[in-house]
């Protein structure tokens, strides 16, 4: 698998999602960058024998941190960047495989795939939560320093 190919396609796909979600024109490149960073983390970890759930967790954390930084710099809501960034991590392929096995009456495989897809969705959520918590801790410590 060519890593350059992955970098370019993830950038274009995330920026494309910025357009679908009507993000402001000037933020499209940043949407693309956010998605690209997340996907690079995910793909390198998944290629190096890490578990997909853990790779998704790390990638969604990176997406959330990147979008928080962008939102601080450009004084815009954070969701503009994070929404486009997490789309590539959504376990669409796994959910599809689960659905196909359900249809083919292979319930054992289907349920295990569905459970895995559910775990990955949970990992996306936890990655977002982690970054939010760290963000708030930093903000609070700043406030106490100022006082």
């Amino acid at each position, binding site marked *: 698998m060519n890593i350059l190919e992955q970098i370019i396609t993830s950038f274009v796909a995330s920026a494309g*999602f910025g357009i679908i979600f009507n993000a402001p024109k000037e933020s499209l490149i940043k949407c693309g960058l956010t998605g690209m960073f997340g996907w690079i983390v995910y793909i390198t970890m998944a290629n190096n024998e890490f578990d997909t759930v853990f790779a998704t967790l790390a990638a969604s954390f990176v997406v959330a941190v990147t979008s928080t930084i962008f939102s601080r710099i450009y*004084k815009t*809501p954070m969701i503009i960047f994070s*929404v486009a960034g997490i789309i590539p991590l959504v376990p669409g392929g796994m959910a599809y495989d689960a659905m196909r096995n359900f249809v083919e009456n292979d319930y054992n495989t289907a349920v295990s795939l569905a459970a895995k897809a559910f775990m990955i969705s949970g990992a996306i959520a936890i990655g977002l939560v982690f970054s939010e918590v760290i963000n708030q801790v930093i903000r609070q410590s700043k406030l106490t320093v100022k006082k």
Partner: protein
Amino acid sequence: MENKEAYTYYVMDICLLAGQIMLQSGAETYRVEDTMTRIASSYGIEKTHSYVTPTGIIFSAEESGSAKTKLVRISDRTTDLKKVTIVNDISRRISSGTVGVEEALLLLRDVDKSSIPFSAALQITAAAIASGCFLIMFDGNWHDFLPSMLAGGFGLFCLIFFHKLVPVKFFAEFLAALAIGSLSFFFVQTGLGEELDKIIIGSVMPLVPGLLITNAVRDLMAGHLVSGLSKGAEAFLTAFAIGSGIAVVLTLF
């Protein structure tokens, strides 16, 4: 006294309009509440309470005398992150004291009337390109790039078209997924595409409820349990609609 009452209602109108635009465009619940409270306090109304759910806003301002309460029903929600940004910006300017009461209402009315920044054709093109890119990201080969692009673009076109035709969102998503599945199957049958699975997965991605998932998580974390759960339910229903659309295709062929 009467003047003061009129002023309070005027400020409440501004707050509610700002909240309504943000909620309809897909902002998180806590941001909507935060914006409304900030605008009210910068116009001199300190004690306010707001209760925001995805389907309505209740806003109440306490003044000397009785409290005043207003309710706004939100019936349709779209995704327009640009409006969220603009309203956020206006609220920042109000907080810094550079925008007067009349000007604020005019600015917000302008935002409310403004149309979406990207045309449907551009969005469909973006969805098509994104679908092609997803195919490559999910390990597909370049041979399937064009079929995936066509199926993905056609999918979003169907979603927009059916959503205008039938107001039920989940049914439109179901039909769009059905269209994507059938078109991908057609491509593989005619030899234009090779791997049916990869093409379907790539072209279904533009329908994925990414904004809902993110907002549901953020709302739950901020303690807005009702909004978080209902957005989670909406995301789940969307995923279910897409899944059953694809399942129908897989069963038929």
